[in-house]
């Protein structure tokens, strides 16, 4: 059973079609990375799935709740961090989280323990009694994450959770998200591909209101993996001489040069892994570097989305 199930979701704003028959399935306990260029429909999808917007047509279920029927039940099961979390500036973080705890009907003791636990989790324990109005963007983002976790949600929606943070803050937030794996289902949209690569186990890429691909991270990387080795030798002439012989090998597709670096494209990865290095060493080459190139998520993204670019 899927924690998030979206079928043929359409959303139009006047003449603009934000979602064009979106289908999406997210399994329980997974950290789902939502990627897409600007205007692809990621935030619209999140707003619909959190009950802030209504679809023009199509159906969606979150944690077993049909979005067309019960908004209150949905609210008890989800947590949501908008791209720019907003707070009552006159409140302190303790007061704000306490207010949310009251909305979920948490008892006094449980509420105060939960507030303390969350503030410690997002490293705002020392700022618990300061007014939120004076918080930096990073502090607000961390408070937003704490706010999204007050009710220990079954499904957590995170819209660009780490984009406003400095590298240390980003690492903390990503560690936090990683720690939630298995405890709740996370749907996270971001434009930072490295973050997705690091924490997400399933990746969905959206473009023009549709999900163009959805697959486990490694499977997605393997799909677009080009079997390439890079070789850097001390003696560039020796490497070029070897290339004349190398091109005739049955498992070599092509060899290109860029200065001291040779790029060997192969058509049989398994055979190449066994044969290429011995072959180079037999030719008497002294190697500075020998590397099987792994595709990055950026390669996958650019290949699938093309020139639309990142958000």
């Amino acid at each position: 059973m899927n924690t998030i199930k979206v079928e043929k979701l359409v959303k139009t704003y006047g003449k603009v079609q934000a979602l064009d028959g979106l289908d999406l399935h997210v399994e329980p306990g997974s950290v789902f990375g939502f990627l897409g260029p600007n205007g692809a429909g990621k935030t619209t999808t999140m707003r619909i799935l959190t009950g802030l917007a209504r679809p023009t047509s199509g159906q969606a279920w979150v944690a077993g709740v049909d979005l067309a029927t019960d908004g209150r039940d949905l609210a008890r099961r989800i947590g949501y961090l908008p791209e720019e979390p907003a707070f009552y500036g006159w409140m302190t973080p303790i007061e704000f989280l306490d207010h949310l705890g009251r909305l979920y009907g948490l008892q006094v003791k449980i509420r105060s323990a939960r507030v303390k636990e969350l503030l410690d989790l997002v490293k705002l324990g020392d700022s618990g009694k300061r007014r939120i109005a004076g918080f930096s963007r990073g502090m607000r983002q961390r408070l937003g994450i704490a706010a999204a976790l007050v009710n220990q949600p079954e499904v957590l929606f995170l819209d660009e959770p780490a984009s406003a943070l400095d590298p240390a803050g980003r690492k903390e937030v990503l560690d936090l998200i990683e720690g939630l794996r298995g405890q709740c289902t996370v749907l996270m949209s971001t434009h930072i591909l490295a973050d997705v690569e690091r924490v997400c186990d399933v990746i969905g890429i959206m473009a023009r209101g549709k999900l163009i691909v959805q697959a486990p991270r490694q499977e997605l990387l393997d799909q677009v993996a080009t079997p390439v080795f890079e070789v850097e030798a001390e003696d560039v002439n020796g490497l070029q001489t070897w290339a004349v012989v190398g091109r005739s090998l049955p498992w070599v597709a092509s060899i290109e040069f860029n200065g001291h670096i040779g790029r060997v494209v192969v058509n049989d990865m398994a055979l190449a892994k066994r044969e290429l290095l011995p072959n180079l060493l037999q030719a008497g080459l002294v190697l500075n570097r020998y590397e099987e190139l792994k595709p990055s998520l950026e390669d996958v993204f650019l290949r699938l989305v093309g020139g639309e670019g990142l958000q």
Partner: protein
Amino acid sequence: MNFWVVFRKEMLEQWRTYKVLIVGALLFMFGLSSPLLAKFTPEMLAAVPGLPAGLSDFIPTPTVADAMTQYIKNMSQFGILLALLMSMGSVAQEKERGTAAMILTRPVSRGTFILAKFAALKVTFVVSLLLASLGCWYYTWLLFEALPWGPFLLMNALMLVNFMVYVALTLLCSTLARSQSAAGGLAFGGLILLAGLGAFPRLAEYLPGRLFEWGAAMALGMDTTAWPALWTSLGLIAVCLLAAGLIFRRQEL
């Protein structure tokens, strides 16, 4: 039960952002100064240098009725203005800043969200009117004569109904508008419309403005009523709140 949670937050906000204090202090000041103005304006006029001889004899001696007229004049102007100013950002500002989206993804209905705001504003105006009436009563007693408490408080209750019409109307405008200033503009338009309709005597019988006249008459012991205006006012409050709730439920945040 989430109504009380949201109401608690609204009251806390009114306190922390000094809204209760501002409305309370202003209405208290207007309440206090009304009998003072009624009493001393004629004396000040009479003391103007160069006034033609004998003219001061034509300046009438102030009475308790003048104090009430001044009180109602002040309240009808500044009370309504404060009702608009205090309510225009209630919903629009929360939509604009994103706090509405932050709260309404929790177990809070949009109707509760609106009603809690209305209730908190009502408490603010009840407290402020009580302060204003205390100030007005005390100085009226000091400068003129003691007013009977019952009718005087009933007059203030009618004023409160009038203010709440404008609070509810402004909350509706705040729900409809995307920004605080647009909400204020719409509410001011509603105020002008109601004032314009008041120019037609037959219609005026049914409008909230008539409550002030009824209240003044009541406080001065006159036998006048304006029940149609009261029913229309209560109906307007209910319709505005219902409309605000229904519209807000359909809005996307």
